[in-house]
């Protein structure tokens, strides 16, 4: 197995406060790798560091062997990294389908000239893009919303839509920030199924999630952090039996 993400000595300070401190771990290709920890442990900060929204104070992050520290999110997207957000980032000024089609942005070769005059090459490309996006919407289970304005969709549907958009980019690694938050039992079960299907296609998945049942059931490996530091790392079985983790969650 090749290493997809490798993190070494990662530090992030905000005005002297350590949000992330000395974090080290690596994610292998094709794994479902989850990050858990109490509220405020620095999980989302970690995601923001990996996906280029924050720049680390110190440390090294490599993606497929290439150092990506200080790289903009759009450059990372070009390298196959895509993500969703705890606070969903949906373009409410577009339809659901357009949101997914946006996800294929990097796959499209048309330029200013072809766009301005709507040349046939552009129309062909758009058609292919639309088809693929519709497939993905069906894949994540929101096929019925194709012509709906994003602003008119339910919370659960939007969560899936965001995943469809991320998948539209044909990512090598997908980072999901609390995908199950706000979903009911059935929806969570569907989500679990969806994540499995994505992983089966060879996409590496990183997950920040509070739903322990989901996380324990689905993950290949887990990273537990608290106060920005690594508390434990291992298989679900190892984590479940780790005394530090139990202390942090139950008594800490």
């Amino acid at each position, binding site marked *: 197995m090749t290493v997809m993400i490798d993190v070494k000595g990662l530090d992030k300070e905000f005005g002297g406060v350590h949000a992330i401190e000395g974090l080290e771990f690596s994610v292998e290709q094709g794994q479902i790798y989850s990050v858990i920890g109490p509220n405020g442990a620095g999980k989302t900060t970690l995601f923001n560091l990996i996906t280029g929204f924050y720049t680390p104070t110190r440390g090294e992050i490599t993606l497929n062997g290439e150092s990506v520290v200080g790289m903009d999110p759009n450059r990372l997207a070009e390298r196959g990294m895509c*993500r969703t957000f705890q606070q969903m*980032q949906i373009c409410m000024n577009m339809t659901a389908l357009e949101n997914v089609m946006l996800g294929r942005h990097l796959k499209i070769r048309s330029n200013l000239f072809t*766009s301005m005059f709507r040349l046939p090459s552009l129309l062909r490309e758009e058609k292919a893009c639309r088809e693929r996006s519709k497939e993905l919407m069906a894949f994540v289970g929101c096929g019925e919303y194709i012509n709906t304005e994003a602003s008119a969709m339910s919370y659960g549907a939007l969560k899936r839509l965001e995943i469809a958009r991320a998948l539209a*980019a044909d990512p090598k690694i997908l980072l999901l920030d609390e995908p199950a938050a706000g979903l009911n039992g059935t929806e969570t079960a569907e989500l679990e199924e969806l994540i499995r299907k994505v992983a089966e296609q060879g996409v590496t998945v990183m997950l920040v999630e509070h739903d322990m049942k989901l996380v324990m059931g689905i993950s290949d490996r887990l990273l537990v952090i608290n106060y920005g530091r690594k508390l434990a790392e291992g298989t679900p079985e190892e984590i479940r039996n780790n005394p530090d983790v139990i202390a942090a969650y139950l008594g800490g």
Partner: protein
Amino acid sequence: MFDRFLEWRMNYVLVLAIIVFVIPLLMENPFYFDLATQILIIAATVVGLNLLVGYAGQISLGHAGFYGMGAYFSAVATSAYNWPPLLALIVAAAVVGLVAWVVGRPILKLKGHYLSMATLAVGFIIAIIINNESQLTGGPDGMVVPPFSLFGWELSTFGLYSLLGLEIPGHVAWYLVAGVLLLVAVIIAQNLIDSPLGRALRSIHGSEIAARTVGVDTARYKSMVFVISAVYASIMGSVFAHFTGFITPAIAGFDYSIVLITMVVLGGMASPMGVILGAVVLKLLPQFLAGFQEYETAIFGFILMATMIFMPKGFYPTAMNAIRNKLGKSSGGKA
């Protein structure tokens, strides 16, 4: 059939074309043509500005600077250096595009009010230069611009032309030229919006964060749309200069920038018909208010304020929603 028309993305362009070309049959007075031509020119300008403000969500309070730059470049090149007007117009657009690109790169990193401030500053600097370089521009008193001509064929509002056996007076000819320009401007803008590029632009407005995660180079796209809207402004500025035959630095000034952005917001952002309507209303309002004498300013301000308070989305989208609701009800809630 009608349903397909309603679904067609360019349906409003057809409606617009019909309106533009039917109007001359209803008007007699050359003064109305004069006003209508100006409306068409300014409407094409705000269609370009709308790409930046309405779709990409980036504010510009200095766009008249580009409009004025185009106008003055054409004016100076054709009068002092005897360039052919079309060449001057194209070179002006290229130069303005370049300037917009150079200043746009750093400016568009700014957000919200800081971006407004920076665009305002750029507009001001352009206006100050035009105002001060009076050897070239005639300074604050303005300068005369030669009429538009192409291969020795001159287009003047006081000329008389024949086309397909029809006698067309100059003011109607100008109107038709401006009408065609507006339609071209709208079609190109709509094509851009409906392209992947347009999608990327709109995503910057919808969620810049989402745009970046899917790989949209937001900085590049922002400066691209900034340049496109500046080029729109420059071309229409050149056209306006030849049309009116006399320009003053006021067309590059802050007040005019505000007028432009008000047209976009008043009519309805991100809606080509909306911004065109905005241009129509804002251009006609002073003519209607002329009778109110000293109350004109107060009434104008009041209308502006009230419209934005009660129709924050602009009156075209508000009106369309109202119509749609009505239609929806009458057809038994089918929609």
